[in-house]
C-alpha cells in the first residue's frame, strides 16, 4: 500500500493534446475514481500510471519512489482490464497465479496465495476451470483475484464493470467497494459511469477533453459543482438548465418570478454580459409540495418508475441550448415522489427552494455560487 503522486503529467500525440497537465495526490488507501465522457483522457492517464504508455512529461511517484520511467512490472501495481484479459489457455488457478509465477515465486507459495485470494473472492470451486467456462461475474472476480494475489502497492481498474449486465454491475460495484474496505489498497478506478463514480469513490476526478474539471468527494460534487460540465455530468436524470436574466438586486428572473440568490447584483450583471446567466435546478429538488418559488407547467410526458415519477415539461422562454441540442430538446424534468395519478397536458403546480438553485456564467461555465 502506498500513496501516489502524479505531478504535471501530460500526453501529446503529435499536435493532439490528449492529456493536459494532470496533478493529483492520492493518499494511502484512498479510492479515487477518474470519470468523464469517452475521449477525456482518463484511460490514457491510467495507462501512463501503469507504465503501458509513456508520458510526454511530468513525474509519477508511487510510495515516494519515482516510477515515471519504470517498466510496468517494476512498479508494483496490479491492473484490472475492461475485458478482464484472462488467458483462455490457462486454468483459473494459473491465471490468478500468473503474475507470481512470472516473478519466480516458489510453487508452494503461489498455491497458498492463490487459495487465499480465491477464498476472499469466493471462486475456490472454479480454480480448475478455464475462463470460457465462467460467467461474466465469475470472470470479473477472477480478474480481481489476479490483482489482489500480488499484494501490490496499488490497484488500477480500467472500466472493470462495463462488460457486465446492469444487475450484476450493481452487485459487483458493491463487492469491489467491500473488497477495498477489507484490504485497503490504494485504488484508482476509471469509468464513464457517474453512478459508479459517485457510489464507490472517496474522491472523484471529473475530466473532459484532457482537462481536470473538478476533484472532490461525491457529496461536494453533487452539491457544489464547479462548472456547467460537472453539474450536467453528475446526477441522474441530469440537472435542469435554464437560461435566465438578473432581476433587481441579488436575484434572478425565473418563470416570471423574482428568485433571490446568494450572488451579488454586480456579479450577476457581470455574468449576464459574459454570455448570460444559467440557472441549474436538480430534478429531485422540484416538488409539488409548494413553498419557495412556485410555478405552473403543463407536463408533456410523464414516466412512472413505480416509486417516483419523471415529469417532463417545456422550459419555454428559459430554454438553454449551451451544452448540446439534445439537452435543449428534452426540456426540463422534475423527479416527483408523487403517487397520485398525474396527467399529461393538465396544469400542475411545481415549486423549488431558491437556495437549491445553482448559477453559472454562460460563456465560461464557471459556477457563481
Amino acid at each position, binding site marked *: 500500500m502506498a500513496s501516489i503522486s502524479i505531478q504535471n503529467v501530460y500526453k501529446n500525440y503529435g499536435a493532439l493534446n490528449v492529456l493536459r497537465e494532470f496533478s493529483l495526490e492520492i493518499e494511502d488507501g484512498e479510492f479515487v475514481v477518474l470519470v468523464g465522457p469517452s475521449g477525456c483522457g482518463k484511460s490514457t492517464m491510467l495507462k501512463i500510471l501503469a507504465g503501458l504508455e509513456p508520458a510526454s512529461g511530468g513525474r509519477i511517484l508511487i510510495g515516494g519512489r519515482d516510477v515515471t520511467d519504470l517498466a510496468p512490472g517494476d512498479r508494483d501495481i496490479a491492473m484490472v482490464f475492461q475485458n478482464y484479459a484472462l488467458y483462455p*489457455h490457462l486454468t483459473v488457478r494459473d491465471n490468478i497465479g*500468473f503474475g507470481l509465477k512470472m516473478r519466480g515465486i516458489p510453487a508452494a507459495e503461489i498455491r497458498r496465495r492463490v487459495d487465499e485470494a480465491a477464498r476472499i473472492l469466493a471462486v475456490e470451486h472454479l480454480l480448475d476451470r478455464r475462463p470460457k467456462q465462467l460467467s461474466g461475474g465469475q470472470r470479473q472476480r477472477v480478474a480481481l483475484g489476479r490483482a489482489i494475489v500480488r499484494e501490490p502497492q496499488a490497484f488500477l481498474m480500467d472500466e472493470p464493470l462495463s462488460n457486465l449486465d446492469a444487475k450484476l454491475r450493481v452487485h459487483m460495484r458493491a463487492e469491489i467497494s467491500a473488497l477495498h474496505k477489507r484490504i485497503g489498497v490504494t485504488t484508482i478506478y476509471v469509468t464513464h459511469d457517474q453512478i459508479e463514480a459517485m457510489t464507490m469513490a472517496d474522491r472523484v476526478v471529473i475530466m473532459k477533453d484532457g482537462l481536470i474539471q473538478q476533484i472532490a468527494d461525491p457529496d461536494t460534487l453533487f452539491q457544489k459543482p464547479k462548472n456547467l460540465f460537472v453539474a450536467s455530468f453528475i446526477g441522474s436524470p441530469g440537472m435542469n438548465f435554464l437560461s435566465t436574466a438578473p432581476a433587481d438586486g441579488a436575484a434572478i428572473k425565473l418563470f416570471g418570478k423574482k428568485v433571490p440568490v446568494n450572488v451579488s447584483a454586480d456579479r450577476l450583471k457581470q455574468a449576464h454580459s459574459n454570455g448570460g446567466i444559467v440557472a441549474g435546478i436538480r430534478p429531485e429538488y422540484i416538488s409539488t409540495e409548494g413553498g419557495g418559488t412556485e410555478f405552473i407547467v403543463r407536463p408533456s410526458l410523464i414516466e412512472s418508475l413505480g416509486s417516483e415519477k419523471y415529469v417532463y415539461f417545456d422550459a419555454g422562454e428559459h430554454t438553454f441550448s449551451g451544452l448540446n441540442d439534445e439537452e435543449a430538446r428534452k426540456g426540463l424534468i422534475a423527479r416527483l415522489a408523487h403517487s397520485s395519478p398525474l396527467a399529461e397536458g393538465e396544469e400542475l403546480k411545481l415549486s423549488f427552494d431558491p437556495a437549491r438553485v445553482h448559477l453559472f456564467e454562460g460563456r465560461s461555465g464557471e459556477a457563481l455560487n
Partner: protein
Amino acid sequence: MRKRKLIDLARPSRQHWLGYILLAPAVILVAAIIAYPLLISIDISFQDVKLPRMGAARKPFTLENYQDLFSSPEFWHTCWVTLKLVVVVTTACLAVGLATALLVNNRFRGRRIARLAVALPWAVPEVIATVIFAWIFDSSFGLMGWLFIKLGLANQMVAWFSDTTAAFWVVATTMVWKGYPFVSIMCLAGLQSIPEDFYNAAKVDGASALQRLRWITIPSLMPVLGVTMVLVVLWVFRDFSIIKVLTDGGPLKATQTLSIMTYNEAFGFFKFGYASAVGVITLLLCVIASMAMLGRGSKAMY
C-alpha cells in the same frame, strides 16, 4: 394474380435446393478428377499390372504388390527419408515462419515492404525456385560453394549432389525456403487476433518479453500453428517438383521420398500395380498423420 414460377427457389421448403445446385459442378469435377482416379489406383494396387490400358481385362486379385513392398528395404529406406524430411522441413518452416511473423508484426517504418519480402518466396513458382537453388548449389559454379570457401568452411567447391547427407540438406533447405512464407502469413494473421490487453496484463504482471512469448503468444497461436503444421506436413509428403528437379531422388536414393518413389516405379520401371501400392500407403500415412495432429492441435480454447 402473379404467375407462379416453375421452380421457385425462394420458397422456404426449397431453401436448400440452391445450395445443392451451386455445389453440383464442383462435386462432379472433384469426383471425375480425384475420386475416380483414386479408386482406379486402389484397384490397380491389388492387381499385377505392368502398364495399364483402357479396356484391358482385369487381372486376378493379389496382395503381391503389398507383400513385395513391405519386404523391400528400398521402401523402408524411402519411408525413413520421407519422415526425416517431414520432421526437418516442418520444424524449420514453423520456426522460421513464426520468427519472421513476430518480426513483421512489430510497428516499424517499412513494415509493408518487410511483410511483402517475407511472403515473396511463396509467389515464386516451385520449379523456378528449384532451378535457382540448383544453381546456388552447383558443384562447379555455385554461390554456396564459393561462400563456403570464403568463410573457410571448405577448401574447394563442394559436390553437394554427390554426397548423400549434403544432398538431403540441400533439398531440405530449398523446401524450407519455399515453405516458410505460408507459415509466416498464417502466424501473422493469428498474431493480429491476440488481444492487446493480454500483453498489457502480462507486462503489469512483470512478464519479460521472452515470458510473454512463451506464456501468451505461443499458446494463443496454438490453434493456428496446429492447422498450419498439418498443411505443411502434407505439403512435404506430396511435394514432387522440388526433389524431382533438384536431385531426382539421388544420390543413392538418399532424397527419394514416397512421392518420388511412386513416380519412379510407375513411369521409370512401368510397374503400375506396385507404384499404386506405394501411393495408397502414402495416402494412408497422410490421413493418419493429419488426423492425429488435427485431433490435438485444433482443440478449441475460446
